[in-house]
């Protein structure tokens, strides 16, 4: 707090801003207190205000689909895509389609992965990549994992290509960028189920639909990173290209794109991670493989075996993450001139030899070709026993906690939230907006939540807001101290970040069952599941924020004799706060995603309606609900980024 006062922006402007905010806040308070005297149209959105958005969207979709015949185009496109998917499916798990060569023996794939790992980053990555596939084969998950990968190996390149081209287009054309940016914002905050419904309508179900939703979900970060990379290319580099007489295409291909290489590779890394995040959700519309199996096992309460699949998904994610990062860091190797073909392609030759060797071996020993479920190992017994033990141990605590939270916290909070007149909520949000970013932010808050009110889902939206707010609050109580603890040393930070990575890629559906077993079907279970997910970004960004504080400032604090606690509270935390707030923002986003998934526990919020929309393939309703959730996310996103941006400037961090 001490640092902020020194160079705050023009004080009188801040003062008027805060005064307006205070007035708005007082107005909100009056509306809430005077609820009984309020006319009905200020308590709940009146009927004339609620617009039939869902019907409009459905009519528009029907027009585009049937009258413009778009469905024939998308179905034709889907058939083409299916052909490609059939090829990979044949190679990886022997689906009976052209070219009818597969399945490739698991040993060959494992050795290929190990060689790629070695080529990118030496022995350790080689061992990790190879052993990941050995684990999959030995646990008897080969078929499912290959079904999953057969979709991802198609979806990821499509996504990268699309992202790259759209990124380049956005960089070239200011107009396109202006249209694209809000679309990307919405796409990244729209719950997955919302865009799965139109995909079912236009594409159908099955692996092709799985591939398409995966592409839709993973393309935004690629576009953003491409754009960011291209914008960062310095004028001098381009100048040099011009001087060498490069054409516009050559300039792009040989100068700009290679210079933006790091950002583009980070984008590719993001694409891969998003693809794996979609594995389970995409199985709702027919993507085969690990996700589908996971849902079946959970349905039969087989927690141990679903955890095994969860581990596989984490391992695949970590492996692909490490490989793509190693690829990003790897600088091109320059061999001496005149080196023979064999020296230049040493690894390639070695790989080819190993492939032939293992292929032959697998013909002789069937176990090296395929491991059936009967021969496979399973950890499910110890895992189940461990889960039972954890649940039995926690049970006395959770029974009490459940009672306490429901009776004293959650029910009063929810009733309060539903009691509030909608006009008071809107006024309050405007007050917050005005306090943080002035008139513009206030209007943005009003517009987003005003649209939610006009959608006719106000009560359910308020339940979502209540769940998310409370969950993020609890997540902060847990994540923040953990982050401070984790930031104390390099070693701890590494461990904490590894745990964060694992929790983030571990399929969230698996949490749902133990959480119900602990708390029952109620809001406590929902909050519990959401908190597990929402705490992750808080821990991550707290650690990164605290560790990113310039060493010189900490040294200065030490020199002036500050104790460790003083340094933490007066120097490190204020400086790290902008980064931590990004974590809070992420935490809200994660909660919004998870609260929709928590509908599978049983909720009365937007997620429950979304589930209904999905099972009745109601595109309009699904999109309206999805947009309502997206607008909540975008409101928080806007407020946090305005606040953090100003703060950064004030602290001189930019």
């Amino acid at each position, binding site marked *: 707090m001490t640092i902020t006062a020194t160079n705050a922006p023009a004080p009188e402007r801040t003062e008027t801003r805060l005064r307006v905010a205070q007035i708005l806040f007082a107005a909100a308070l009056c509306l809430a207190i005077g609820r009984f005297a309020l006319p009905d149209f200020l308590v709940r959105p009146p009927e004339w205000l609620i617009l039939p958005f869902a019907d409009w969207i459905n009519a528009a979709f029907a027009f585009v689909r049937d009258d413009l015949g778009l469905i024939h185009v998308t179905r034709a496109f889907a058939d083409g895509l299916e052909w490609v998917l059939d090829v990979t499916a044949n190679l990886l798990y022997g689906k009976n389609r052209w070219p009818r060569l597969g399945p490739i023996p698991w040993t060959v794939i494992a050795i290929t992965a190990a060689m790629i790992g070695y080529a990118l980053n030496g022995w350790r990555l080689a061992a990790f990549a190879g052993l990941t596939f050995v684990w999959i084969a030995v646990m008897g998950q080969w078929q499912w994992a290959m079904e999953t990968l057969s979709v991802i190996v198609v979806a990821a390149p499509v996504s990268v290509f699309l992202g790259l081209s759209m990124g380049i287009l956005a960089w070239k054309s200011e107009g396109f960028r202006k249209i694209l940016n809000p679309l990307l914002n919405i796409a990244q905050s729209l719950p997955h189920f919302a865009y799965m419904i139109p995909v079912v309508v236009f594409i159908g*179900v099955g692996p092709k639909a799985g591939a398409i939703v995966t592409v839709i979900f993973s393309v935004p970060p690629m576009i953003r990173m491409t754009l960011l990379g291209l914008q960062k290319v310095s004028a001098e580099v381009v100048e040099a290209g011009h001087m060498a007489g490069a054409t516009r295409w050559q300039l792009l291909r040989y100068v700009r794109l290679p210079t933006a290489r790091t950002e583009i590779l980070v984008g590719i890394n993001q694409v891969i991670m998003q693809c794996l995040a979609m594995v389970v959700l995409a199985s709702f519309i027919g993507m085969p493989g690990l996700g589908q199996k996971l*849902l079946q096992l959970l349905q039969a309460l087989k927690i141990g075996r679903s955890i095994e699949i969860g581990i596989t998904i984490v391992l695949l994610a970590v492996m692909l993450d490490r490989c793509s990062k190693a690829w990003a860091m790897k600088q091109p190797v320059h061999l001496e001139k005149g080196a023979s073909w064999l020296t230049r392609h040493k690894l390639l030759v070695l790989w080819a030899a190993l492939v032939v060797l293992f292929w032959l071996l697998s013909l002789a020993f069937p176990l090296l070709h395929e491991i059936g*479920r009967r021969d496979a190992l399973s950890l499910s017994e110890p895992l189940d026993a461990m889960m039972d033990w954890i649940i*039995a141990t926690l049970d006395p605590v959770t029974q009490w906690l459940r009672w306490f939270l429901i009776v004293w916290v959650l029910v009063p909070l929810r009733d309060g939230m539903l009691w509030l007149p909608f006009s008071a909520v809107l006024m309050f949000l405007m007050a917050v907006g005005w306090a943080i970013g002035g008139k513009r932010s206030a209007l943005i808050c009003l517009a987003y939540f005003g649209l939610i009110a006009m959608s006719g889902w106000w009560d359910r939206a308020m339940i979502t807001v209540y769940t998310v707010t409370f969950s993020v609050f609890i997540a902060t109580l847990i994540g923040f101290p953990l982050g401070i603890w984790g930031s104390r040393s390099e070693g701890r930070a590494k461990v904490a970040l590894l745990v964060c990575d694992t929790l983030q890629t571990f399929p969230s559906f698996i949490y749902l069952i133990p959480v*119900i077993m602990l708390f029952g*079907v109620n809001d406590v279970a929902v909050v519990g599941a959401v908190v597990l997910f929402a705490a992750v970004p808080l821990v991550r960004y707290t650690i990164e924020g605290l560790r990113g504080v310039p060493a010189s400032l900490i040294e200065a604090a030490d020199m002036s004799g500050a104790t460790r606690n003083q340094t933490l509270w007066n120097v490190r935390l204020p400086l790290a706060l902008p980064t931590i707030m990004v974590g809070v923002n992420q935490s809200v986003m994660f909660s919004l995603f998870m609260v929709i998934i928590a509908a599978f526990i049983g909720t009365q919020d937007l997620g*429950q309606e979304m589930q209904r929309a999905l*099972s009745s*393939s109601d595109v309009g309703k699904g999109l309206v609900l999805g947009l309502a959730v997206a607008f909540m996310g975008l409101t928080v996103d806007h407020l946090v980024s305005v606040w953090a941006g100003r703060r950064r400037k004030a602290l001189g961090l930019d």
Partner: protein
Amino acid sequence: MRSKTLLSATAVALATVSMAQAQDSSDPILIPTHNWSSQIVMSHVVGQIFESMGNSVEYVSTDSQAVYESIRLGDVTLELEVWEGAFGPAFETAVAKGGIHDVGDHDAVTREDWWYPLWAKEACPGLPAWEALNECAELFATPETGDKGRFLGGPVDWLKHDQERVDALSMDFVVVNAGSASALWAEVGAAERDKRPVVIFNWTPNFVEALYPGEFVEFPEYVEGCKDDPAVGPNPDMTYDCGNPANGYLKKAAWDGMADKWPGAYETLKRISFTNPQIAEMAKLVDIDELEPEDAAAEWLENNEAVWTPWVEGDA
């Protein structure tokens, strides 16, 4: 490739002329699978029967409500478990739109209703009568329902009208809707540890019967009209004052084009009919014996050859 499509085109043409001798198309028959084990195993059993007849078969996982729309469009070929209670409405809407039709019932009957695990009966000995359940309502109370008992219903989109029944019979129960079938089982699993009484929505045939023995609550018997006509049933002023039918249908459904495209398989499908114990056995092979669905199906076919060979050969 080209000659093949030509061949199958002639096959289709022939099929329309003489059904009995026609060849089945070589295109794969697409069988949808859902997220409960008996349906998956049954799909594989039938798929393997079709394969033994020389057809090619593929399985796609789909949502169990949305599947009727896919069958209508011919995206998938058939559905083996159409439950009266759970999917009746979705199926009938699709039939009304056209493209899908009824291929007959299984011998199995289905029942969906309020259900409790046996340990609940120890705490409340008057069960299974619904009046007794109502007397013990407090035993089923949870923090969120206060003094009233909690009934854990299925997801709202299953449209079970439990709330209406509670009102019509003025029971001291609150209906809480779980979000998925897994959530229902997780509650029973958790309740088993301390033998806490619970009453949930359940159905038969179902694998849960093997894990947790239990019984259905006996409500006033279902009579025609009790769901639409207030006068029918014990409460003269309200509808839904009765239980669900104790013998609901379990149907097979198929895409309209199936009979022409795969006449042989279609004829077999018409003859296929499973019983409750057979369905329970299929579920058990996966849920208790931990077999993979395809292996379970193979094992079932091996053990029950006498059951299914007549389906393939026909009665003639």
